[in-house]
């Protein structure tokens, strides 16, 4: 009998089952899955380490665990002690725990410090077919490599530290097929914002998404990570992309990439990680990249997005009661009038950074647009590279000079204004074009207003002062 055709997520799951769940009274208990890589940061790990200490348990596999500091770290004066006492305590606690339990840590000031989801791939630790977890919802980023990568809670962090496994309930699969090719000035951020606008912030609940189709295959790894990163904003447990030549080339030569014979064995396995012909997804969404415009959000959840060429919607146009009420509330919070053209919205701040868009390709794309241009005088622009290494690389390429000459602030690496756990926050009423992932009320600072955008839209907006696409610069030139 031929094996049942499987989807990519099902294959990775199958290859990690340590103990299958048991069927009893019509319910199936969770499968126990092995975890290949556990990423740790300072916010969701202190109680997990304390749990181990109280129970007298060691970290089972320090050699499959790595920690870095990102959520709380300052992006200015990183040589000084962290000013906020709670932030400092969380960071100090992580350092002490890493030392006590023998976990590798990249601290502030280290070349491999940075946003946990930028650091893993940069070191070559994220590879196809792996299970990757972290106490952070944007762990889905690593799915870009064909890994099954999920965010977990603090109890689960402790569970993985102690056992290197996790009991997980089975999932459903959804194919997100993006046909055609992106036009210039349109990026992977626009794809994922359009997907979330299409299926809603709960549309992916219970699913692992597999992004596929020609437009996805044409993307670089940096761009693929942007898409998988925001899978969680559609409510999905994870998002994945089948590994291919682009993936292998990205990994090859990185510090922890397989070498020699191991490389050949790895590639042979990785190449098997494609959804089989005839495999069934539980749901499918199809998108056309050829006609996709730059996308931007108008509301207070990532599903409230529209083409940048469009306008702020009218709440009464929503037939669904919940959607209408949510839109009304969002427009009040965002201080926007229905029918206003998105391109007429003036912003105060532009934030280029976060685990969604802070990698080399993002910085290069923005710098290319800013080069030789004048910043709108009333705009403040903050550029926060995803890791210390990204910062160094950008400086080696002279991108820091482009940003600084343009009038943007060139900062040190971390999560920064994406969630404002450090001093980088919006003021009450301040409006921001942000390359991050969440436009929730108060996310970037109490009363702050967020429009999610791609790096090139962020750059064009910093020049014109209003939400803009790169193409608008040609018109006005």
């Amino acid at each position, binding site marked *: 009998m031929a094996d049942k055709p499987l989807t990519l997520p099902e294959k990775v799951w199958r290859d990690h089952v340590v103990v299958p769940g048991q069927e009893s009274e019509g319910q199936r208990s969770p499968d126990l899955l092995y975890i290949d890589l556990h990423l740790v940061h300072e916010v969701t790990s202190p109680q997990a380490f304390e749990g181990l200490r*109280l129970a007298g348990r060691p970290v089972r596999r320090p050699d499959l665990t790595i920690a870095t500091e990102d959520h709380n770290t300052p992006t200015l004066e990183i040589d000084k002690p962290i000013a906020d006492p*709670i932030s400092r305590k*969380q960071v100090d*606690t992580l350092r002490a725990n890493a030392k006590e339990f023998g976990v590798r840590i990249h601290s502030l000031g280290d070349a491999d410090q940075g946003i946990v989801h930028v650091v893993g791939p940069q070191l070559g630790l994220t590879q196809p077919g792996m299970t990757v977890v972290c106490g952070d919802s944007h762990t889905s980023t690593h799915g870009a490599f064909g890994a099954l990568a999920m965010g977990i809670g603090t109890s689960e962090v402790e569970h993985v530290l102690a056992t290197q*496994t996790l009991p997980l309930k089975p999932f459903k699969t959804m194919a997100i097929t993006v046909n055609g090719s992106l036009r210039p000035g349109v990026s992977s951020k626009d794809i994922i914002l359009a997907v979330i606008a299409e299926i809603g912030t709960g549309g992916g609940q219970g699913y692992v998404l597999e992004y596929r189709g020609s437009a996805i295959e044409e993307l670089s790894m940096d761009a693929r990570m942007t898409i998988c990163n925001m899978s969680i904003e559609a409510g999905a447990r994870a998002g994945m992309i089948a590994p291919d030549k682009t993936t292998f080339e990205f990994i090859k030569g990185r*510090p*922890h990439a397989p070498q020699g014979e191991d490389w050949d064995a790895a590639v042979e396995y990785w190449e098997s990680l494609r959804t089989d012909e005839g495999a069934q997804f539980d749901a499918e969404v199809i998108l056309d990249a050829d006609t996709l415009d730059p996308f931007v959000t108008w509301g207070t959840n990532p599903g409230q997005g529209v083409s940048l060429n469009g306008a702020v919607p009218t709440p009464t146009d929503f037939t669904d009661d919940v959607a209408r009420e949510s839109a009304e509330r969002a427009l009040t919070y965002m201080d926007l009038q229905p029918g206003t053209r998105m391109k007429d919205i003036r912003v105060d701040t532009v934030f280029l950074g976060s685990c969604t868009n802070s990698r080399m390709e993002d910085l290069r794309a923005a710098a290319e647009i800013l080069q030789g241009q004048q910043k709108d005088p009333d705009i403040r622009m903050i550029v926060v590279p995803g890791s210390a290494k990204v910062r160094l690389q950008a400086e080696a390429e002279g991108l820091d000079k482009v940003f600084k000459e343009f009038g943007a602030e060139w900062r040190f690496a971390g999560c920064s204004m994406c969630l404002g756990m450090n001093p980088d926050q919006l003021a009450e009423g301040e409006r921001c074009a942000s390359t991050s992932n969440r436009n929730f009320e108060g996310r970037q600072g109490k009363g702050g207003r967020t429009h999610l955008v791609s790096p090139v839209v962020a750059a064009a907006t910093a020049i014109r002062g209003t939400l803009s696409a790169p193409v608008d610069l040609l018109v006005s030139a």
Partner: protein
Amino acid sequence: MEPITTHTGVGVPLKQSNVDTDQIIPAVYLKRITKTGFEDALFSSWRKNPDFVLNQPVYKHGSVLVAGSDFGTGSSREHAVWALKDYGFRVVISSRFADIFYGNSAKQGLLAAKVAQPDIELIWKELESNPGTEITVDLVARTVHCGSVDTSFEIDNYTRWRLLEGLDDISLTLREESSVEAFEATRQGFKPKTLPAKV
């Protein structure tokens, strides 16, 4: 996690339904880095009121909370269970628990016993006429005894077994140690390790 077979302790009447986790422990306490020491956080807003039940000396050392229906609704914070346990509660009795809270309790060794509402009213009456009355909860027999009130409680078999054995999630998984070791022996050799560090 400490096993429970029977527990006897002072019953505390909390005559309120829909006690949500923001009431059990407000968000301001979530910034802490510890997993214990939340006893002061438990019901911290309500405890500012001198008439609140836990401020009465007779209930100060209570360990069986008898609450109204829908206990533990709202945010999924595990801190709610930590706070109850740190204060000294081993058992919460209610006619209905929120799903996540119920699951979190089982994981942390707090017994959430479902008792029918009419019996809860009888227990409240008993506790109020004789403050300081002890309640005995027998997990083996699934019974509750409080003064003249004798009743039974509901608990699913799996949770009951885990509490009787004192098994948290990690202990349960550690029982599969040989399977984990066997799995590790077959892991592909090319899979990356974080140690020794390469940069």
